[in-house]
């Protein structure tokens, strides 16, 4: 870490808005990119990015400027994204919720019918947030296990275990819905 970056982080911990703005502009894209990979909803990802930086700003006094800012930000972002995922099924039924959002923001393969897409979305929505995040990052986003482990604060074996459990639950849930991948 260069002296300039450390000095800037030092200023940020003292509440300097300009130093915070510099950090915000440097990291907002990275934080957003990480969150959107977990929640897969651009609107929610923007809100969660703002919330991440809001929490970062409020916790600035506890931050050690010698530690990497990016890793700290990503840990906070991950926790917020997981909170969002665990809240979501209660707020909106995922059967149509995720499928509708997927249709609006992403472009699913048209060869797959809407019914199968809805069933996949529902099966994903039934997973506990931690398993859903692990399987989404590993299987849809193809994020390296080491990166997932770092962000979730668990070991690589822990990630493998979550993905394994998620795959087992997903397969069971999809088979119950008549989809056999």
């Amino acid at each position, binding site marked *: 870490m260069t002296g300039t970056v450390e000095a800037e982080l030092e200023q940020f911990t003292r509440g300097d808005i300009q130093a915070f703005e510099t950090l915000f*502009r440097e990291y*907002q894209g990275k934080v957003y990119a990480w969150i959107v990979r977990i929640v897969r909803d651009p609107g929610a990802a*923007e809100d969660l*990015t*703002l919330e991440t930086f*809001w929490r970062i700003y409020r916790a600035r006094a506890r931050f050690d400027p010698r530690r990497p800012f990016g890793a700290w930000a990503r840990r906070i972002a991950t926790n917020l994204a997981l909170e969002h995922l665990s809240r979501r099924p209660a707020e909106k039924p995922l059967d149509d919720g995720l499928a509708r959002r997927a249709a609006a923001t992403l*472009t*699913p*393969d048209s060869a797959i019918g809407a019914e199968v897409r809805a069933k*996949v979305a529902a099966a994903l929505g039934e997973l506990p947030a931690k398993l859903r995040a692990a399987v989404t990052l590993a299987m849809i986003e193809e994020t390296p296990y080491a990166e997932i482990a770092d962000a979730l604060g668990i070991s690589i074996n822990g990630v493998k275990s979550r993905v394994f459990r998620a795959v087992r639950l997903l397969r069971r849930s999809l088979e119950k819905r008549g989809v056999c991948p």
Partner: protein
Amino acid sequence: MNERDEALKELLKRATGGPADPELKHDLWPEMLRRLERPPVRIPWWDWALAAALLLCLLLFPETIPAVLYQL
């Protein structure tokens, strides 16, 4: 990853549209600044005084607790 897992992975990617677009479409700083400049919610002193008076009242006259609860 075995063949069945690969098939599931393929289905997930095709059904969800694959990796999300990681590009942030606009600068979020103006919104962050608005949030930072928003005055913090302050509870006026008379609210604290009212709460303290109520608490004192309940401590001195515990028989009023059911009446207070009924009013809630």
